[in-house]
């Protein structure tokens, strides 16, 4: 019997705010243990929560970017459970009135070839709500140590419908979601820092079945490739169980990305009973049109929309767009450079960015924001090449120097005498005539229809020009002369 997998993802994204969600002590990562606490974070007796406006702005913005309906009123609930990383032993969350409802994440599946766009799908979302992060437990042989720095960091829980069917789709979903959050300035989504965390609910069922199979929750998918590998592994595991005539047990499994295996977490003695109730310490949030409008105005174009526009407006090849659009800063850099050049030079600009700029950044271990090469300077370089002033190989040398010093390309070329010779048309024409005359065999071949034979004349011309002739102009001059012979 053919089976299909049904996957729903619960993604937690830390919101990048300066202070915590319910108190104003600083939020942050990598600080010395327990230096980001106050009476509220530690849940000292008598402490009370106060909402952080920026966290609300961020989740509403996330909701707008993902096409969610923003609830006109939402409230805060307490989720009651005991755990040593939870200072109050309840988590302030949103239960039956989340701030964002519905919405979707657009994904692209791998295409038939690397340079061909794959199929796009919209994965529907159930909801997004806001809650507080917990502290961090460090386990040792005989005890555990708790650091509360992370406790109270604003956290969004983004819940998808069970609408994904393969590990590839899940991978594409996370890639797209992550880029959207980074684009919106909502989170840095660094999975190593725990800024994005993913749990997956996975079940399998016979293809065409209307009901869902027994679901298994997979935890600890703490890198995007672990998400893909872990889900693929779990689907295979469940298929194996069914093939052996077994039944799937509802459980939570822990995926170990290093070994590529998973194991069942000891099930709780009793089912969870979170005893949700409205938090009496916090007032509801009312979102009006004006607030939404202000945030909508701050929403950036999303990567896939940008890609469609780049393909159309700049006629870029797909492969180039798929590098440019996933990094908002890179895409912005590209557009700034094109604005200084010409739309017809967009592809050249794109190539310079993707091939040369990214390579230099990579080897220098720098971020785009740190480069000394201004978009206008890159545009100037492209123009010098396109106009024939600089040969491509020379231009690459110029770029390396631009990258190192931040100097303008024409200044570098002039200083180093790299510009193509200011062409004396008469002199060039004479060199061309000499070259044709010096190679009758090539002339015969060219006349017989072998176009590439023209290259045999170029070497001597370049030699005569000491390498400074503009190759395009040489080619054009040779063709003009050959046509008359």
């Amino acid at each position: 019997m053919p089976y299909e997998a049904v996957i729903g993802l619960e993604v937690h994204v830390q919101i990048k705010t300066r202070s915590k969600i319910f108190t104003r002590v600083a939020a942050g990562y990598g600080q010395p243990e327990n230096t980001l606490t106050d009476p509220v974070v530690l849940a000292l007796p008598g402490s009370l929560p106060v909402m952080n406006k920026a966290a609300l702005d961020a989740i509403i913005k996330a909701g707008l970017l993902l096409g969610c309906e923003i609830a006109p009123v939402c409230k805060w609930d307490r989720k009651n459970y005991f755990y040593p990383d939870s200072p109050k032993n309840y988590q302030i969350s949103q239960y039956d009135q989340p701030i964002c409802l519905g919405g979707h994440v657009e994904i692209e599946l791998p295409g038939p070839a690397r340079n061909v766009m794959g199929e796009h799908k919209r994965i529907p979302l159930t909801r997004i709500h806001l809650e507080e992060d917990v502290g961090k437990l460090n386990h040792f042989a005989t005890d555990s140590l708790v650091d509360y720095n992370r406790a109270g960091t604003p956290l969004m829980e983004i819940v998808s419908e069970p609408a994904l069917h393969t590990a590839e789709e899940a991978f594409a979903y996370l890639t797209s979601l992550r880029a959207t959050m980074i684009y919106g300035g909502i989170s840095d989504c660094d999975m190593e820092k725990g800024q994005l965390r993913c749990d997956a609910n996975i079940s399998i069922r016979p293809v065409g079945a209307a009901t869902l199979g027994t679901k298994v929750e997979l935890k600890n998918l703490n890198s995007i490739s672990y998400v893909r590998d872990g889900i693929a592994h779990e689907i295979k595991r469940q298929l194996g169980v069914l093939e052996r005539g077994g039944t799937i047990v509802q459980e939570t499994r822990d995926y170990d990305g290093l070994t590529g295996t998973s194991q069942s977490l000891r099930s709780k003695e009793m089912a969870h009973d979170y005893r949700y109730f409205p938090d009496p310490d916090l007032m509801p949030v009312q979102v009006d049109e004006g607030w939404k409008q202000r945030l909508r105005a701050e929403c950036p174009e999303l990567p896939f929309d940008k890609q469609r526009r780049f393909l159309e407006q700049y006629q870029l090849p797909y492969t180039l767009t798929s590098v440019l659009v996933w990094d908002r800063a890179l895409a912005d850099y590209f557009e700034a450079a094109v604005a200084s050049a010409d739309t017809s030079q967009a592809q050249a600009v794109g190539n310079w960015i993707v091939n040369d700029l990214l390579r230099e950044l990579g080897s220098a271990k720098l971020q785009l924001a740190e480069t000394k090469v201004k978009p206008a300077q890159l545009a100037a370089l492209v123009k010098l090449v396109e106009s024939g002033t600089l040969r491509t190989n020379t231009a690459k040398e110029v770029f390396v120097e631009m990258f190192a010093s931040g100097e303008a390309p024409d200044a570098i070329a002039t200083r180093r005498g790299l510009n193509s010779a200011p062409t004396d048309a008469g002199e060039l024409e004479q060199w061309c005539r000499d070259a044709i005359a010096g190679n009758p065999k090539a002339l015969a071949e060219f006349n017989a229809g072998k176009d590439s034979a023209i290259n045999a004349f170029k070497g001597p011309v370049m030699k005569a020009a000491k390498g400074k002739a503009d190759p395009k102009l040489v080619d054009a001059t040779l063709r003009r002369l050959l046509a008359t012979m």
Partner: protein
Amino acid sequence: MSELVFQTITELSGRLATGEISSAELTRTFIARTKSLDQRVHAFNSFDAGDALAQAVASDERRAAGQSRGPLDGIPVGLKDVIAVTGQPLTASSRMLANFVSPYDATVTARLKQAGAVLWGRLNCDEFAMGSSTENSAFGPAANPWDLARVPGGSSGGSAAAVAAGEAVATLGSDTGGSIRQPAALCGVVGLKPTYGLVSRYGLVAFASSLDQIGPMTRTVEDAAIMLGAIAGHDENDSTSYRSQIPDYRAELKRRPGPWRIGLPREYFGEGLDPEIGAAVEQAVAFYRAQGCEVKPVSLPHTPYCLDTYYIIATAEASSNLARFDGVRYGHRSKDAKDAVDLYFKSRSEGFGPEVKRRIILGTYVLSSGYYDAFYLRAQKVRTLIRRDFLKAYEEVDALLTPTSPVPAFKLGEKSDPLALYLCDIYTIGVNLAGLPAISVPCGFTRAGLPIGLQLIGQPFQEADLLALAHVYERAHDWCRRRPAFAAVASSG
């Protein structure tokens, strides 16, 4: 000077201003008196005499430099041991917090410090403010200064007893279902529960967040007005704090002469009301009538449901609020826990007393899966109806007049059944559910010499009117000048 410890804030601040006494002398007097008396009253869980004296000296220095901060500057004020003071114990009268020292100030604490008050002692109460007799204190019950064999009421029993016994000029209590007003009534002092949201709860150990309010316990209505003026007002650290203009409550006492339209909720004068209390309240009604007030019966038809609604909402919130007491970051930690889960069970079972456990269990139950709608959600809806009853009554009257407690102070150990104790709150809890302000003022004594309290209930954020209404009554009576015999003997001896 012999009666220094029974003087009001108004009187003492006058004496401090003229230099007749210093804050240091005044504070020393209270320290000495408390040392000699409190073994019998047990109004205090602890006090820090050195710290209090240092505050008093600082006050005297301010005064000498012409920088006195007003009527509370230099006045010893006691705080219920559920209100945080930096560097001082904060026990909530629980074994759970027996060794806890607060690293921060409650907002009311900061405001009293700003007003120059000498923060004096940690006052006994029922554990986590759960109770009506202060018998639930893990450190032993407090006694009623009018009869040491009787309870001072609760949960702010220590706060009431300290004022009644002359161990503090004024105190702060907290009121979730009557915990300021009922002990005020039983100890013959003034107790004000402000409108929910008028006084910040930041730094108040939470019992039931949607009901808790901090308020003053004093000798006179005027003193309550002074204290309220110091602690009221919006606080950015409490999301439930209300943004309202804070009038000069003391000045307003004289600007609002009435007459008022006063309602007598008929549901508050029925079965279970001690006849002597009923008679005393009738006298107060007669007084207001004589003042030209229109007094008429009103109905709060959902009153019979107040107690149940209260015990569902208050315990539900408490079950969650008290989850943080787990022996991890602070508080009692069991010595023989084998793992983290075991730590919770052992620490909490050892750290909490029986009444706290009972309420946590009740609150956990009413929130648990399958019962939420039948209990908690229904109680929240009935709460809406209860609140509407009051607001409807206020279409006809300006204030409501009721007894504060159905019974006078009872004997220590007399009421062992929780339900019987819960019934002590029947006249006070509706006010918390509706979020209204209410004050208890002394209105007489039983034949046995036990104080009786009159409750006046005001409209939201109209504390100035409520205080003025109470002030008119108080000025025409001398109840607040009476001294418990024990205290009088103690002060002469």
